[in-house]
């Protein structure tokens, strides 16, 4: 079996002509790349002005620093859990920057970077991780399950792939309302095996719903390598099952991802239907802070991919282009570190728990009788025995 995560990306091929007759297929899913190893790129494929390129690079740096810091915080017991995106930043920021800000994002759980790009304040995000009194989600979900309505960033749930049909429905609704909105759905390689992947893509392709299905193929679903997820040689080719357009792009190449996303958006907005965009990247760390990947994957495999780090790649490009110099890069990194430190101090200052009544709010628009009664019941229990709710003083 060809292990795509072991070999270097296939060189880009000229597009073969399509034989467009019923029953016949000629399609190609070459890995599309813009950023060359030597730090150069075809100028025609550089989609943004230098300032914007640096801005996106800065986001990637911040996201990396954030993930690293949060993994440390989790080890220190200051947050309960963390799931980062180290190694996948180009995929995340390339797609998020490739759509319009009016477009809705239906995240998986590694795309907090997209929420930050959309204006989720860092302090707010950190409060979500703490699940503290200022958590927008009112301490109801695990860390990394944020929602951010002002940024049209939908709510994250743990079940894999459920957000995919949601993206389809939202984009469908927008089209009915006459809005120019393209939904961006994120999911992993593992998610392509899930029920909702099949349903979502089929519904969308059938009705030409304006959605971009951004598959972060990071090579792993916890311990299961991409090659044990499906016998298909590429994930992009799954588009063929739905009569949908599919593309395969180097997910560690910010510009390639951004360009492909823009093309997919244009196609969707023009009524030409959705795109399955396979972004081939790599999960450099464990699945989450609960995971230790040494139990299932050889370290040397990771080393290969560390050399393809999307941040290094973008940095090399910016330096060579002269959009950035070493001093500016160092300054940018200092700023980012400082910004994080400040936000962390601010977030940790809030009370650790949301008030008791929040437990019963938002189950329904208005609490029903049982939520009202149960709040009173819990309040009485807490009043009668302060150990209620305090893990250190009861039970196992």
């Amino acid at each position: 079996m060809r292990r795509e995560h072991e070999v270097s990306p296939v060189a880009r091929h000229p597009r073969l002509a399509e034989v467009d007759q019923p029953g016949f297929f000629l399609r190609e899913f070459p890995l599309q790349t813009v950023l060359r190893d030597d730090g150069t790129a075809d100028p025609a494929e550089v989609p943004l002005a230098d300032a914007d390129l640096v801005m996106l690079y800065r986001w990637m740096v911040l996201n990396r620093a954030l993930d690293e810091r949060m993994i440390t915080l989790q080890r220190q017991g200051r947050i309960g859990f963390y799931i980062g995106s180290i190694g996948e930043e180009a995929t995340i920021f390339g797609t998020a920057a490739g759509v319009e800000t009016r477009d809705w994002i239906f995240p998986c759980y590694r795309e907090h970077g997209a929420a930050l790009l959309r204006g989720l304040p860092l302090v707010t995000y950190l409060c979500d991780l703490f699940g503290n009194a200022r958590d927008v989600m009112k301490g109801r979900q695990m860390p990394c399950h944020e929602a951010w309505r002002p940024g049209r960033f939908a709510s994250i749930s743990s079940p894999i792939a459920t957000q995919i049909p949601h993206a389809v429905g939202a984009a469908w609704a927008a089209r009915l309302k006459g809005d120019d909105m393209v939904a961006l759905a994120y999911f992993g390689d593992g998610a392509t095996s899930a029920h909702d992947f099949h349903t979502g893509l089929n519904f969308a392709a059938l009705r030409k719903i304006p959605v971009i299905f951004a598959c972060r193929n990071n090579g792993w679903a916890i311990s299961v390598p991409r090659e044990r997820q499906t016998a298909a040689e590429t994930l992009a080719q799954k588009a063929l099952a739905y009569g949908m357009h599919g593309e395969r792009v180097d997910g560690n190449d910010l510009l390639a991802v951004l360009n492909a996303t823009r093309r997919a958006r244009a196609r969707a907005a023009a009524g030409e239907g959705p795109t399955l965009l396979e972004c081939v990247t790599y999960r450099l760390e464990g699945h989450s802070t609960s995971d230790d990947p040494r139990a299932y994957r050889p370290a040397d495999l990771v080393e290969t991919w560390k050399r393809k780090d999307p941040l290094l790649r973008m940095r090399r490009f910016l330096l060579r282009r002269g959009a950035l110099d070493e001093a500016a890069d160092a300054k940018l990194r200092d700023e980012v570190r400082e910004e994080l430190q400040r936000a962390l101090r601010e977030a940790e200052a809030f009370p650790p728990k949301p008030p008791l009544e929040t437990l019963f709010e938002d189950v329904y628009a208005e609490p029903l009788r049982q939520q009202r009664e149960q709040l009173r019941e819990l309040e009485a229990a807490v009043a009668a025995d302060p150990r209620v709710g305090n893990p250190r003083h009861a039970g196992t």
Partner: protein
Amino acid sequence: MPTMNVIQAVNDALRVAMRQDPDVVVLGEDVGRFGGVFRATQGLYDEFGADRVIDTPLAEGGIVGTAVGMALYGLRPVSEIQFADFIFPAFDQIVNEVAKYRYRSGGQYACPLVIRAPYGGGIRGGHYHSQSPEAHFIHTAGLKVVVPSNPHDAKGLLLASIRDPDPVIFFEPKRVYRAAKGEVPEGDYVEPLGKARVTRPGTQATVIAWGAMWHEADQAAREAAAEGLDCEVIDLRSLQPLDLDALVQSVSRTGRAIVVHEAPRTCGFGAELSALLQERCFLHLEAPVRRVTGFDTPFPYTLENEYLPRAPRILQAIREVVSY
């Protein structure tokens, strides 16, 4: 007032809702040009077009999952599941997504949608065209669950459900889709969710039912009356929210309660009602709360009339409970 059956009332409610609010759309298998296998959406495709009356591929998870996205974006989708038995491929979307979306987002998002499904037995449907899965959804906080028994309520409750800010699972008693007829107001009106109806006042026992089984309960109460046993009959209509006050008030008075439902007994909604009544009316109860229900088996075909908790079995329970 025109006379309608339940399916016509449902159809009328959908039409009224769609005329009044352009955000209301319906989606499901065969609901489009064909008008649904029970004809609940008949005529809607012609009036409102393919954009708002959407034939979907054969995938209940998609019918609900897509509706979630529509609801988030501001539509009011009404999903049809062809038979309640086929709601299970959408179960994950319903219990893990629909029910929790508002809560988990801290109230930033809401997911107001209706999932309509014909439910219940008595139409010779066997295992997979007869189930009554309401208990699963009542157990899932975040959902409302409504089951009308007659055309008037079907229309008024469906209109209320479509406009409700919360997701509603709306089970329609297909056994009486055509058999239950009655006067139905024209145009717009709602029946509020969470209000039971005392359809027959009585003093000696309270019979609680909903949907198709209300008709059996009513029949049994009438037969009991002929024997001199005076029963109160309550049509629950909305199972979540539950009109607990109405139940407590009635049972505190009669001291005896019988709950009727088609679903298997174990862990059915009858268990919850029994537990609640026992918690709230303990000192008034003259006899154990009695459950007359479907049995703990899959729904059968040939013996479905034996399986269903029909009037003769309810009547026997009334006699036993009153003489406890």
